[in-house]
């Protein structure tokens, strides 16, 4: 995750946050496993096939889906294609720079993509126009416009909402437009380790104080679909098991509250 000079914490604030977390409390009043307030505006960009504007606390992202006909991958001739891209816009944080995707944005995009893909959320087999020749390609693009931590989960939420409302423009191929076939909703929950505690949905400041990050994406069956450990710290296996439990519990709540 980006950790940048622009947000260097004073030692006073640092010590304060760490002390509170030890006591199970957070600077903004949340408990260690609480998410910040989530608001999702669906169809925010009507010109897109599907879109969403997500506020996760003060983190803001816009996700847009475009669906176009194109060639399938040679090894999956009978499936549509999903591609996911994340842009960390320079407007989102003082040290974000314009330019090609860097390792941070690539990691976020790939972790988000893995959750969607591995849960088989989109029924890609229903996106075939002509087997082996022409399929629908689902382009997911996510623009990060304000960064206050936990981009992986903000982006996942945006993609879920955007895909859920997306329409496949089949009329351009001589068919009839239809909603993108969705089978299930994978939810990612990201935690960081501060001291010995796991802290859910970290803010930028909490990300800066943390030693390691873990994202666990679970499906509606409660199974793990994707995981990613990040940063140079380490986790014990017990901590990972705890993270898995937190993720499936919290994921369920988010799915019920924000994605139905």
């Amino acid at each position, binding site marked *: 995750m980006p950790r940048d000079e622009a947000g260097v914490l004073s030692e006073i604030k640092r010590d304060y946050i760490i002390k509170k977390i030890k006591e199970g409390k957070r600077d903004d009043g949340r408990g260690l496993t609480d998410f910040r307030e989530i608001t999702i505006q669906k169809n925010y960009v009507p010109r897109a096939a599907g879109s969403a504007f997500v506020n996760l606390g003060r983190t803001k992202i816009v996700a847009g889906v475009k669906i176009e006909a194109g060639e399938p991958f040679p090894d*999956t001739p009978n*499936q549509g294609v999903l591609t996911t891209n994340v842009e960390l816009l320079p407007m989102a944080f003082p040290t974000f720079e314009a330019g090609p*995707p860097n*390792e941070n944005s*690539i*990691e976020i*995009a*790939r972790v988000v993509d*893995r959750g969607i*893909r*591995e*849960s088989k959320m989109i029924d890609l087999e229903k996106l075939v126009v002509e087997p082996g020749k022409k399929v629908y390609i689902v382009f997911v693009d996510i623009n990060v416009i304000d960064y206050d931590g936990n981009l992986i989960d903000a982006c996942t939420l945006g993609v879920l909402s955007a895909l859920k409302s997306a329409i496949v423009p089949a009329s351009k191929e001589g068919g009839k437009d239809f909603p993108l076939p969705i089978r299930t909703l994978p939810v990612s929950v990201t935690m960081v380790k501060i001291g010995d505690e796991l802290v859910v949905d970290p803010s930028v400041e909490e990300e800066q104080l943390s030693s390691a990050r*873990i994202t666990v994406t679970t*499906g509606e069956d*409660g*199974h*793990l*679909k*994707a*995981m*990613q*450990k*990040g*940063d*140079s*710290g*380490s*986790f*014990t*296996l017990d901590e*990972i*098991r705890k993270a*898995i*439990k937190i993720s*499936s519990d919290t994921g369920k709540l988010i799915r019920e509250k924000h994605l139905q």
Partner: protein
Amino acid sequence: MGTASDIKLIDENGLRIDGRSPTELRPIKIETDVLDRADGSAFIEWGGNKILVAVYGPREAYPKHTQDIEKAIIKARYNMAAFSVDERKRPGPDRRSIEISKVISEALSNAVMVEQFPRAQIDVFIEVLQADAGTRIAGLTAASVALASAGIPMRDLVVGCAAGKVDGQIVLDLGKEEDNFGEADLPMGILAKSGKVVLMQMDGDLSAEEFDKATELILDAVKRINEIQREALAGKFVSLALERGGE
């Protein structure tokens, strides 16, 4: 994970497509100091994987604005040779290799005493000459050996190992077909002594119980892989001393 298929990956005797049992690793061989110029190097053969690792540094980080006044930065570069896979791979970094480079760098930063080298960088070049599933964990295992052979101070050796799910069963160290047609893959990087997890990625479908089973297999295998790392490092020196023993 790849697409479902009719290929049977585990036979009626419980053996896998390459004849291994579910808890069996593929053959692993590590050699150190295989390159002349590098400060440290290692070559690993793990199943059909053939991977070279070279370490350069610590040296002053360049460009200068990348320097960290408190510690060295570890720059791992995972790269697949164009001829390493069935279909020619376009040379140069793609998104997958950029992500793998990042997680390997982070895992190694945990073991290396980076705080001893402010302003410096340590380059770890991981070149996959032939890929056969599990390249990131094989590369990580060899990188850790190459760093140690370069005389870089470390808290522990890092061992890479993966487990996964194949035909509904949890198995150790996925081979190529299992990687392509299996149901889950869980690559991990573990500190040999403390058992702490410094790299973990997962994709596919695993229940919490299956995850526990998979990590059990991995932890057990880590001991065996670490032994191979140690032998690769020490072997050269021990054999030289034995050779001299007759005089």
